[in-house]
């Protein structure tokens, strides 16, 4: 177990390092940000000065080393557009994204997993078929389009909910969050539902597949032969087994939901990091792009690492090592 953790940890470090190179090279190959930033009427001398100021005249590997050295000091550079520290910029936007993602994941889990369990337990019933049809809608219809429909319906036509932006913040347990106010909730609910639909579809299908498979195993038949009622078989035997893959995917999806927030934040004009990255791509704000992508990579690596360990904890076959 200890060896397993160490090897995973080393792998994670290698991944972060490799990805930082790829991200850096990739992003720095995009266009020339000076053209975007500078007044076309500016003199060649001004232009050269600006290029030198951002270190853009240096060879790429040197730029990367400078970048690494700065990162080591906690400095990820300055945004070329906002002209502020990138770290500060990203972290000021992060809470908004996190609260959106958490609400979305909560909705997807609370509805998706029970629905999937039911659909897997009674695969032939009408309700199960309806659940499955909805799950196909959930993960196939593009998020931005559903978001738009939601705005048209609940904001424009009915006028019940605001069409975008983040609501008032309040303080809850010392954390400043819009989830502490009613106005905040009215702003978050629509984007969160929008963001949750894809995950919900996925969770339903995953849980159902696990359930259907588990119900056909010998240990379930054996439990039935012992006279255990179905309820007990589902809750004591089966759930324990399917919880392992579900928890794994849940963790992995946490990360991808964060990435998907890009779309929802754009539609609902939500002031999170997703909106920030879209804006920075459109304005070629390199430091912001690099910071965001590296942040995402690190987040993914941490999540994967945690999921691996949780998985190993949950499954006694991994935890204790097989004897045969």
């Amino acid at each position, binding site marked *: 177990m200890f060896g397993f953790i160490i090897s995973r940890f080393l792998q994670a470090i290698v991944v972060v390092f490799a990805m930082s190179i790829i991200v850096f090279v990739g992003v720095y190959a995009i266009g020339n940000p000076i053209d975007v930033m500078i007044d076309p009427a500016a003199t060649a001398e001004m232009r050269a000065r600006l290029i030198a100021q951002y270190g853009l005249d240096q060879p790429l590997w040197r730029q990367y080393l400078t970048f690494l050295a700065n990162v080591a000091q906690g400095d990820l550079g300055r945004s070329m557009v906002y002209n502020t520290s990138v770290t500060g910029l990203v972290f000021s936007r992060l809470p908004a994204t996190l609260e959106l993602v958490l609400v979305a994941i909560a909705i997807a889990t609370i509805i998706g997993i029970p629905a999937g369990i039911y659909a897997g337990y009674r695969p*032939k019933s009408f309700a199960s078929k309806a659940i499955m049809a909805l799950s196909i809608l959930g993960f196939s219809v593009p998020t931005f389009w559903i978001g738009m429909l939601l705005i048209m319906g609940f904001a424009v036509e009915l006028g019940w909910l605001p069409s975008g932006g983040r609501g008032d913040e309040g303080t809850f347990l010392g954390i400043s969050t819009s989830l502490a106010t009613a106005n905040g909730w009215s702003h978050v609910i629509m984007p969160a539902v929008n963001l949750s639909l894809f995950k919900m579809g996925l969770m339903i299908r995953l849980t159902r597949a696990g359930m259907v498979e588990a119900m056909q195993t010998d240990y379930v038949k054996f439990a039935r032969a012992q006279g255990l009622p179905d309820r*007990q078989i589902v809750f004591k*035997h089966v759930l324990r*087994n399917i919880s392992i893959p579900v928890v794994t995917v849940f963790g992995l999806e946490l990360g991808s939901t964060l990435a998907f927030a890009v779309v929802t934040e754009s539609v609902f004009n939500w002031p999170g990091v997703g909106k920030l990255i879209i804006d920075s791509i459109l304005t070629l704000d390199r430091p912001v792009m690099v910071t965001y992508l590296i942040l995402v990579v690190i987040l993914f690596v941490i999540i994967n690492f945690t999921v691996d360990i949780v998985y190993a904890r949950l499954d006694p076959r991994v935890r*204790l090592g*097989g004897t045969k």
Partner: protein
Amino acid sequence: MTAALDVKGLTTRFDTRAGTVTAVDDVSFSVEPGRIMGLVGESGSGKSVTGFSILGLIDEPGRVSGGQVMVEDTDLRTLSPDALRSMRGRKVSMVFQDPMMTLNPVLRIGDQMAMAVRVHEEMPQAKALERARDALGIVGIPSPEERLAAYPHQLSGGMRQRVAIATALLHRPAVIIADEPTTALDVSIQGQILAEVRRLADETRTAIVWITHDLAVVSSLADDICVMYAGKIVERGTAEEVIGQPRHPYTRGLLDSVPGQHEPGARLPQIPGSTPQLSHLPSGCPFRNRCPRATQVCTTLPPFTSTGGHSVLCHHPLEVS
């Protein structure tokens, strides 16, 4: 003496796209307390479906469509689903073929067994665990106390099968259905389990239905034998009768096919053809197109003819010498 298990006219059908198939066709037998009945058949003969039908554990698209299953004095077929469930594990229980699959891999042995105890009898967990430990001891598992805390993957195949048998024994059922429980095990382990089962049957007076394809196993273990072919019981009698003086040509063919008894290198006596598909059975006697003794009369279903307790479903049974 009343039988622990008395099956009469049990019939199970499966609705498939190719039409309805009768997997268990009018099967009748009874087992007395403390006796072991070997239910022998090749793959597709319906022997496992018979086992599941007895417990009422046939899933869609199958259904038990007729017959009577008396366990002690209750007909399981007339019970409500809930009442039937309360019989399972308490009066009649089952052991499966693959010991690697029958135990839940993520639950401790003790917890699984305690669950099986408490579903039929209300008692605290600690007491249920004690019962589980005793059951493990009975089936010859060393240091049962420690095994309770183990997960299935920490035990060998033979040990797991003992755990499964112990679980089946928890409520001292009148009947245990054992579906090929030693097929997946090595010969030496198989021998140990067989000896253990024989002892348990004698000591606990449990009636055991031992489903298998292996004639060698039943001939050493069983008191009585039923031979199944294409969903029907074709021969029934005591082990000595069926093994020593088979009357059905199929039973005879099966016994002769075993290589051990013949001159090395000689051609083995063989049954021609292959096991029929249940959806394409010949009319009348299902064995007739593979049978050396078949005649025109075999296109009609043969009757059961008995000499003493030894009965055979054949128009032309072999003579008893």
